[in-house]
């Protein structure tokens, strides 16, 4: 990941003034940073270098004698492999859908919760719960207690509402990807809501009041005051959400075991490595994922760089 080109930098931060603090040299400044930096490089970057090496090898742990140099063979496999190409698309659809839907829902709910009403604290507590349930537990809950066609809650509610003749869809079989998306949206909307609510509550009131005095409609106030103020929070939510959802494993693993066209990249690599024991090919797939992520990350980091803009003064 070191390859990521950081967005064009503003000149290095202005030095702090007090001379008492400047006496010590650069190394004294760097020293506190080094343990974290060294640790992270060893634990995250070195394994990736090893992945890179293995990706050019024939290495299937089921055939330990056939280990050798493979050239770009694994990469050729990866690019011609229909399963893998499909899982790339699945990953994109899954991530974009979950991030977009949970961001929009989260914004709507944050706006609702930013108003005064009776029991606001209780409603916020209720809303947070999905984010706090262990993801595997949540996936099991959705699969067995909610989606189950025989005795799941969803079909139970349909029976309740429409009697014994109510339709009883088999949710996961009929709409596998949407089932995964629904469960993830349920888990991530509270996360987005929390970030966006924090943003709304930091909005200075005086500007809103001035606009109101000037006769702005609520829609105008939202469009021209709230939305621009919320931009950084929306970006932050999208960025953090994407980082975690691109890598989602638990929901896909538990809900569908990657079946029915829901295998995303982490799941596909997991099976290539863990079940097919094809280390070379799994590594090549991993490298391809990283290259794809670098492309997205470079773009995303440019976006995050706006997070620094208002902080320059301090640094």
């Amino acid at each position: 990941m070191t390859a990521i080109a950081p967005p064009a930098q503003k000149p290095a931060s202005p030095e702090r003034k007090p001379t008492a603090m400047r006496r010590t040299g650069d190394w004294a400044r760097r020293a506190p940073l080094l343990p974290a930096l060294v640790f992270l490089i060893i634990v995250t970057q070195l394994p990736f270098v090893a992945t890179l090496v293995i990706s050019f090898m024939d290495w299937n742990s089921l055939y330990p004698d056939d280990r050798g140099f493979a050239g770009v063979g694994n990469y050729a496999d990866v690019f011609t492999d229909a399963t893998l190409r499909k899982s790339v698309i699945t990953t994109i659809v899954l991530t974009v859908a979950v991030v977009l839907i949970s961001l929009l829902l989260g914004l709507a709910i944050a706006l609702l919760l930013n108003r005064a009403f009776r029991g606001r604290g209780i409603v916020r507590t209720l809303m947070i719960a999905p984010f706090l349930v262990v993801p595997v537990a949540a996936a099991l809950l959705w699969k067995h207690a909610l989606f189950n066609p025989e005795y799941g809650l969803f079909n139970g509610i349909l029976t309740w509402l429409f009697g014994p003749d109510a339709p009883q869809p088999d949710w996961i079989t009929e709409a596998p990807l949407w089932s995964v998306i629904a469960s993830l949206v349920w888990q991530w909307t509270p996360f987005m809501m929390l970030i966006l609510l924090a943003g709304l509550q930091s909005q200075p009131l005086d500007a809103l009041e001035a606009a109101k005095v000037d006769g702005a409609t609520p829609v105008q106030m939202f469009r021209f005051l709230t939305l621009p103020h919320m931009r950084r929070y929306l970006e932050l939510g999208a960025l953090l959400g994407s980082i975690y959802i691109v890598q989602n494993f638990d929901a896909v693993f538990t809900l569908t075991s990657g079946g029915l066209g829901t295998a995303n990249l982490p799941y596909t690599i997991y099976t290539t490595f863990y079940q097919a024991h094809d280390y070379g090919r799994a590594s090549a797939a991993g490298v391809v994922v990283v290259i794809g992520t670098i492309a997205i990350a470079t773009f995303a980091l440019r976006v995050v760089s706006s997070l620094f803009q208002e902080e320059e003064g301090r640094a």
Partner: protein
Amino acid sequence: MTAAVATPTAKPTKAGPKRSKGAPLLGLVAWIVGILFFLPVAWMVLTAFHSEQDAATNPPSLAAPLTLDGFREFFGATSGASPWPPLINSAMASIVSTLIVLALAIPAAYALSIRPVRKWTDVMFFFLSTKMLPAVAGLLPIYLIAQKAGMLDNVWTLVILYTSMNLPIAVWMMRSFLAEVPVEILEAAAIDGAGLITVLRRVIVPVAMPGIAATSLICFIFSWNEMLFARVLTGVVAQTAPVFLTSFVTSQGLFLAKVCAAATAISLPVLAAGFAAQDKLVQGLSLGAVK
């Protein structure tokens, strides 16, 4: 943002957004949405207290008698495997890695905010970029290294990995929190001749305590929830609670009440911590951008 935060004008917003004409109706909508989102959790807990027979009915039985059988099953009264070793492994991996993250992230955040190294933004981006490296891309070498070192099925392997998983976000969060420490205090400490360790321990840590709490909470939640590494790198001895939960389902067929009891029990520590520290959670998730 952060610059503005320190000024008192930003504060009153939290106290009370004003009520307008549509308020009661929108309040009702908020309640309905909140209940809808909570419904699956409530259903999980309710089912956990039902007998297997009552759990598997359609339409659902709300008035069925409550029983502790599901929890008794889970805690091993009737079945073989005890959940305690996995729960203890999870607690250990989460708590120890969170402590190490703090020990590494606080000095790093100091070097990135209070006396920033040159090019500190580049360093910040590097930290975040390691989060974008998909975990699976490093999984195989980590597996092989752990295997060579005899560290497979060992909680400490998870401690190291969870530390690296949470460190970047923790550095980002702590940097934002430390950036709020008033300059005057630091200058006073510098004039008194306090060294780095003293400044961190006596000045920064106490002032940034809410931020440290928020960071710890989020690291704890992500570690407690992690499954991919735990699944690949642990077996019997170091198995964590989420992995135990999945084995719980596959090895014994499906018992809905028991699964819900297990899911409830395993989620309980995070639910309790999250509910207790909601405000900290909000601050932490916005990477400390909001105070």
